[in-house]
C-alpha cells in the first residue's frame, strides 16, 4: 500500500469534513476506489449509483460546498412559491449509501499517478475518476458585459437570491438546452 494512500484515507474514512489533520496514520482494508469530483446532479448521482451497485467499491465524493442548491425549480423561489430551504439539500443521504463525502476543493489531477491533489499537500489516490464539476460563468465572453456590469446581476445565484438591482442581463446560450430553467424562462419569471 502506498503511503500517500492512507494519508488521504485517514481523512476520508474518518468522515472528516476537512483535510486538516488528515495525516493520522491508520490501517485500512484496501478496496478499489472511485473518486467523484463535484456533487451536483451528475456527480452525486454517479457516486450513489456506484456505491449502490457495488458496495465493495470505496466511493469518495469531493465537493467544495457543504450543501446543494437545485437550479431546476428555482424559478418558483423567484416567484415566491418556494423558499431557498426548499431547494437546498445536504449530503447525509449519500453517506447512508456508504459514500464518503469529502468537503474540499480538488486543485489538480495527476492522471499518470492516478491521484487528485488538494491544498496542504493532501492527495487522494483513485482507481477510477469521475469529473462532474458543473458549469462556470465566463462573463468576459459576453459582448458588452463589462460595460454593462454596473447594471447587471453577476451570477445566476444572485438572481435566485434576490433581485437587488434593476437590470437583469440574460445571455441566450442557444437552442437545444436539456435542463430547466431555460434562460428565456428565467428572464420571463424575473421580469414578471
Amino acid at each position: 500500500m502506498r503511503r500517500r494512500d492512507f494519508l488521504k484515507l485517514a481523512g476520508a474514512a474518518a468522515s472528516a469534513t476537512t483535510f486538516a489533520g488528515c495525516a493520522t496514520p491508520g490501517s485500512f482494508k484496501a478496496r478499489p476506489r472511485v473518486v467523484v469530483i463535484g456533487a451536483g446532479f451528475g456527480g452525486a448521482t454517479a457516486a450513489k449509483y456506484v456505491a449502490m451497485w457495488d458496495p465493495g467499491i470505496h466511493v469518495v465524493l469531493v465537493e467544495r460546498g457543504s450543501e446543494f442548491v437545485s437550479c431546476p425549480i428555482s424559478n418558483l423561489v423567484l416567484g415566491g412559491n418556494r423558499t431557498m430551504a426548499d431547494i437546498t439539500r445536504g449530503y447525509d443521504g449519500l453517506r447512508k449509501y456508504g459514500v464518503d463525502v469529502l468537503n474540499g476543493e480538488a486543485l489538480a489531477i495527476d492522471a499518470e499517478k492516478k491521484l487528485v491533489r488538494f491544498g496542504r499537500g493532501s492527495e487522494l489516490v483513485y482507481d477510477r475518476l469521475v469529473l462532474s464539476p458543473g458549469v462556470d460563468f465566463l462573463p468576459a465572453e459576453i459582448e458588452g458585459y463589462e460595460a454593462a456590469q454596473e447594471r447587471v446581476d453577476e451570477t445566476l445565484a444572485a438572481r435566485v437570491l434576490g433581485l437587488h438591482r434593476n437590470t437583469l442581463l440574460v445571455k441566450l446560450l442557444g437552442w437545444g438546452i436539456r435542463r430547466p430553467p431555460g434562460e428565456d424562462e428565467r428572464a420571463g419569471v424575473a421580469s414578471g
Partner: protein
Amino acid sequence: MNKLLIAAALAAAPLAAPAQDTPAARSLAATCAACHGTDGRSVTNDVAGLAGLPREHIVSQMRAFRDGTRPATVMHQIAKGYSDQQIELMADYFSRRPR
C-alpha cells in the same frame, strides 16, 4: 376453472419471475435518476415517478416526447437522445421496479 387458474398464473408470471436486468438496461435507466429518483422512485411531486409504470406507457410517452406530440419542458429534448431500442430497455426496466 382450470383455464382461469392458468390465465391467472400466466398474468402473474412476469411479476413472479422478472427477467434479468442487463447492465445495458440498468445503465440506461440510471440516466433518469437525477430527476426521476433512484430506480425511478421520485421523491418530489414536481417530477413523475417511473417505477412500476406499464412498459407500453413509458414507450409511448417517450416516443410522444421525441416527436413533439406530447408537449414538455425538457423531456422533448432528452427523449431525442434515445433510440427505440434504448427506450424499450428503459421502459422494461422501470416497469419491473416496485413503486
